[in-house]
């Protein structure tokens, strides 16, 4: 019964949230990103589904506004993919709120997500969820607390397992080019 009650709470807020999402267009317009009313509705519906799926309840303001604010200047989001990416990002957000056992605050999680999305993920939400966030929350569950000081900034470097920059190879190629 209580679970239904939490779902009802989300449904009651729906109209206000759609209006709030539309009002975000004023800010995102400068990046060429606009949400139609239909897309805003779909986003709210998908948000409610995510909340239900991950057994969470959202009080007060929706996280969608914040996700939009964090990601609107992304080089990997275009008008064509805007709504779809937002849906994926909010789903990932709730999943990893649970996976981090609520140890991460909204801002810490979003900061980490944005940095990786723009960096190593190059806009790939699957890589963000299944690799970057997975490694990060695994460390948090094991007792890592460094993110509290950094607020989620430059955290992935500590857990990245792939060599991203091979200095020796770079020098070798540079030498060859210069001495040719």
């Amino acid at each position, binding site marked *: 019964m209580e679970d239904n009650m939490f779902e009802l709470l989300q449904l009651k807020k729906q109209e206000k949230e759609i209006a709030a999402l539309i009002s975000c267009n004023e800010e995102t317009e400068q990046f060429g990103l606009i949400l139609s009313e239909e897309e805003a509705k779909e986003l709210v519906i998908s948000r409610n589904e995510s909340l239900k799926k991950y057994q969470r309840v959202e*009080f007060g303001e929706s996280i969608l506004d914040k996700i939009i604010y964090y990601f609107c200047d992304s080089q990997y989001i275009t008008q064509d993919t805007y709504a779809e990416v937002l849906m994926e990002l909010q789903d990932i957000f709730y999943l990893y709120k649970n996976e981090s056992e*609520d140890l991460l605050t909204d801002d810490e999680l979003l900061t980490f997500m944005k940095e990786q999305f723009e960096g190593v993920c190059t806009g790939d939400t699957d890589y963000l969820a299944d690799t970057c966030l997975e490694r990060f929350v695994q460390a948090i569950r094991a007792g890592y607390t460094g993110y509290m000081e950094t607020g989620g900034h430059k955290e992935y470097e500590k857990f990245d397992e792939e060599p991203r920059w091979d200095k020796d190879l770079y020098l070798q190629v540079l030498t060859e080019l210069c001495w040719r």
Partner: protein
Amino acid sequence: MEYNVEDLLPIVEKLSREYTSNESSSVSYETARMLMRAVLYCIDAYKSEKSCESVEERESGYELFSVNEKLNAEMIYRRGYDRVVAKVIQAKELYNAIIDQFQDFHCRNCHDTIIEGIPQFFLRYDPRFKPYDHILTLDYPTIKSLDTLCGVDAIDRYLRNIKTEWSFLNVFDPKCVEALLERIIPDYKNLFLDNISNAVLLTGIGCILAGKPVGMLELQKNDMELIGSFFGDASEEKAEEKIRMLISKLFRSGFPENAELEEYFLTTSKEYAVRIVNGIKNNALAGVFDLTDITIGMS
């Protein structure tokens, strides 16, 4: 004082903001349930206080609050929360009063629960987010159960029970109590998990029937005949009546100023009756009382 579940959601919402220090817009269902339970616990605390007041008001002829005073759910919650905090302070005062003259008879279970455990409750109890969680398992049992009580209500009731039991136990010479416990279980210090006053009272009743000083808590094999003849072939109900009479007599003469004590310990009479009647039926009364001239397992 009626309210809907919808009235409680804004309170849960505020509580959830406090719980996450305003740093998370959502919480898990588990956390939301925990917070809802916390709200309901405080509301119940207010309601139970109000119903107690109503009885007093009816008796004293005046009302503390105006009849027309209408409280919304949030006000009820806040007053209930204040009541919970006040209860914790009261329980702390009660504990300090008990611990002043507390004697654990070197029983580890009793020591760990009352001397080690209860202070942890006062350190860790969370009246804001988990007022229903009294943290401790309260392994040392009291004669009266705590029923479905939880949170500070359970601790408060437990401490009241302990206070009553120790008002009785403190009149005995600790050495006599320890000797009795040692007869029950030689390594009673580590292994005695039952209620101490229960064993002391049963032996005390035996002493009255055998015409021996109750304070010594010593019974011999030849006393069993007198005890057996007092009950004869009485049914459990009859035996219970007789035991009630003995308990009343014991407490009225020993603690005339404390009627609560008699009422509290009368609850043991049914259990004693069953044990004694079975002991007589099976010719094993010596096994019911812990005798000084007999060892467990020998007859």
